């Protein structure tokens, strides 16, 4: 054969360059880079020309600078924002307004991600249930919310549900819980932290350290004796004990809060207040007030007049502490709220109320200011590290507790329901991706159904769930920009107002895009990190 073919066999001939895979690869890459570079250059030139024409980045002295373009951020915004985590008023700058918007976006995203995950996981597991009703309810939920546009859902929730809630006086209380649904949105109880919370916190940390030590100690003992000592239970129980002791110690050592009251009232301690109020009412027992009002012996006006009148600073912890104790004792009260302590003192001096509530050191200072200070005594009020503030209608507003405005409630509920439907499908797919053999092996080894789910199925399902879940979290973060439709002041809503007022479109878009990019990259960084941690080891 060799003699018959003088040329080397096929494959050993030199390859022409247009058929050489290595050369083709390099050429394709060079061509691609050139295309990208040309495209980018065209875009940049376009932007640059337009910026030059608009004068967006012109400084006061006529030169162009990227930094000068953002000087408008320190100008007064002059628009109001309905809700904010940080202090804001219209005389603050555009920059601060945008920060308020960014914080609102983060608030709705973080809460939305947490709630959508809970809802989605439950719905996903429910869809796999063998119970016909449970699995079909989950299926209908998923199908409905996945197949209708989010914007439509938001409008429906806002205009069709929340704004149709009753007026504030007729607020709905579902299941008799202290949660109020009204046109003002959703009001529910929330914790208020007292000054003594710091002491309790110290106890909690101490308890954690102590529980860890107990756990390690019992672990060592287990090693020696080879006997299971339920160390997990002991660790939790000892932590709870320390937390409980800390609660009472923090409550009893704290004597920072008090009320300022005239000596003439003969109130010497908290328990005297009941007699004071009862003396002004036509009943013998505070429990009879409701029946007295019901059968007309006591009018609402008389009750209000007889109630304990309190002056305090708006949302002050000492006021929450005091009123929650009054509520427990059943003593009717009326609160006169001021923005600052000196205003509260003025109201007190003017005779608007009988007691002034604040910290005792503040009360001592205020007493010196008052003319009749000598006739006033400061009475310490007991406190616990945390008090629940329950919403209460005062006039035309709810006071106390956590408040979700109609706009915030609409965007939060909308995002949670919509994203939850997608997460439900992801969770279902994840669980179904775990081979049946895993379940059989777990059962054959005697693991209970909950152990099987927790120790065998879910850890494996997580690997399938995390990557698409990341996309859903990102979708939720980006979809939060639809908040503008229901009037929630998120980043985009505020940026849009800023853009209209200032006319700095290029800068505003740069800021908004950078902000959303930062939020999205943070989310995907966190989830990618988690995904790497749980990924399977093979080979």
């Amino acid at each position, binding site marked *: 054969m060799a003699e018959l073919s003088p040329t080397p066999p096929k494959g050993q001939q030199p390859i022409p360059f247009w058929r050489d895979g290595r050369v083709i690869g390099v050429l394709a890459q060079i061509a691609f880079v050139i295309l990208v570079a040309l495209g980018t250059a065209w875009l940049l030139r376009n932007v640059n020309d337009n910026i030059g024409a608009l004068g967006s980045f012109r400084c006061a002295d006529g030169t162009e600078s990227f930094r000068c373009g953002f000087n408008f951020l320190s100008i007064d915004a002059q628009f109001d924002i309905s809700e904010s985590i940080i202090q804001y008023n219209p005389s603050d700058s555009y920059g601060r307004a945008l920060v308020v918007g960014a914080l609102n976006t983060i608030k709705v995203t973080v809460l939305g991600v947490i709630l959508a995950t809970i809802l989605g996981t439950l719905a996903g597991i429910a869809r796999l249930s063998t119970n016909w009703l449970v699995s079909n309810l989950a299926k209908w939920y998923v199908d409905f919310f996945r197949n209708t546009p989010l914007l439509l859902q938001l409008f429906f929730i806002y205009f069709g549900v929340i704004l149709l809630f009753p007026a504030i006086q007729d607020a709905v209380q579902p299941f008799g819980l202290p949660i109020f649904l009204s046109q003002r949105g959703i009001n529910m109880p929330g914790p208020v932290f007292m000054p003594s919370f710091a002491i309790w916190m110290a106890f909690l940390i101490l308890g954690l350290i102590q529980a860890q030590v107990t756990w390690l100690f019992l672990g060592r003992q*287990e*090693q020696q004796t*080879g*006997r*299971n000592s339920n160390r997990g239970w002991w660790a939790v129980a000892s932590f709870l004990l320390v937390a409980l002791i800390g609660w009472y110690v923090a409550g009893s050592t704290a004597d920072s809060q008090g009320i300022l009251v005239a000596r003439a009232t003969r109130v010497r301690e908290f328990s005297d207040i009941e007699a004071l109020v009862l003396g002004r009412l036509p009943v013998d027992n505070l429990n009879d007030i409701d029946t007295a009002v019901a059968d007309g012996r006591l009018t609402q006006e008389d009750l209000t007049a007889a109630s304990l009148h309190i002056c305090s600073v708006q949302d002050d912890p000492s006021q929450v502490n005091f009123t929650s104790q009054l509520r427990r004792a059943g003593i009717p009260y009326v609160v006169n709220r001021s923005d600052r302590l000196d205003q509260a003192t003025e109201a007190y001096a003017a005779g608007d109320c009988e007691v002034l509530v604040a910290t005792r050191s503040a009360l001592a200072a205020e007493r010196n200011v008052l003319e009749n200070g000598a006739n006033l005594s400061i009475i310490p009020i007991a406190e616990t590290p945390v008090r629940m503030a329950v919403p209460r209608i005062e006039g035309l507003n709810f006071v106390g507790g956590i408040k979700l405005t109609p706009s915030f409630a609409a965007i939060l509920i909308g995002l949670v329901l919509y994203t939850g439907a997608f997460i439900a499908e992801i969770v279902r797919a994840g669980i179904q991706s775990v*081979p049946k*053999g*895993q379940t*059989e*092996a*777990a*059962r*054959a*080894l*005697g*693991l*209970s159904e909950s*152990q099987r789910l927790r*120790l*065998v199925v879910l*850890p*494996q399902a997580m*690997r399938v769930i995390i990557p698409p879940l990341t996309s859903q979290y990102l979708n939720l973060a980006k979809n939060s920009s639809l908040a503008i439709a229901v009037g929630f002041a998120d980043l985009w809503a505020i940026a849009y107002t800023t853009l209209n007022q200032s006319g700095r479109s290029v800068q505003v878009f740069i800021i908004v895009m950078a902000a959303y990019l930062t939020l999205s990259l943070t989310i995907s960084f966190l989830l990618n990190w988690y995904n790497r941690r*749980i990924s*399977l*080891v*093979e*080979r």
Partner: protein
Amino acid sequence: MTTMNVTTAPTNTEEVIICSEVHKWYGDFHALRGISLTVKKGEVIVILGPSGSGKSTFIRCINRLEEHQQGDIVVEGTTLNYDVRNIAEIRREVGMVFQQFNLFPHLTVLENITLAPIHVRKWTRDHAEDRAMHWLTRVGIPEQANKYPGQLSGGQQQRVAIARTLTMEPNILLFDEPTSALDPEMIKEVLDVMRDLATEGYTILAVTHEMGFARTVADRIIFMDAGQIVEENTPENFFTNPNNERTKLFLNQILHH
């Protein structure tokens, strides 16, 4: 061992598995048609039969991986019924080895083995790891303890699965075609382990196609066809002098291919 809710007649303590008239349907398909079998303590039983004859279904009924619809199964005095406590009790005492190993891929070999002892038997981690290493040494791969299943060969994985089952200290072992998914040269290492176990007093029910194993190790051979036991014989008689026509056909097929 406590016996609760035993609804059948008093059992001989020597008879650890009693099946009587067990029926199972998959929809309209009648998979098991009245299986009756009594297994004595320490017996090694090999179940043979053509594919689809219900061998696997039958042994999977014994630890309730499949539910039987008629008849009684009593394992070590505990009746297998809808009482979840009985099911849990039986699963604790009956170990199973699968064709596809079914190791947990997200756990190391050691974690695979200690998972059930810690969470079901409530052993301490140290005791569980101690026993796990004992059994890993017995099956010859103690050095693989900290690897993940994906890093092991098929034969090694099946030996880990056997160690995982044995660490739970069951009295009864069910083998569901343990060598069918293995490369030929790995079959021997798994069969050697099974042979050792057979001589140590475990009660064994094995579904397998390894005729050599059946002939040398089994105390009794059960031949199943179409959901019924058609022949029950000693290995000696089964291979040399089978009673049933279907058995003869089967042996012809596999011995002269």
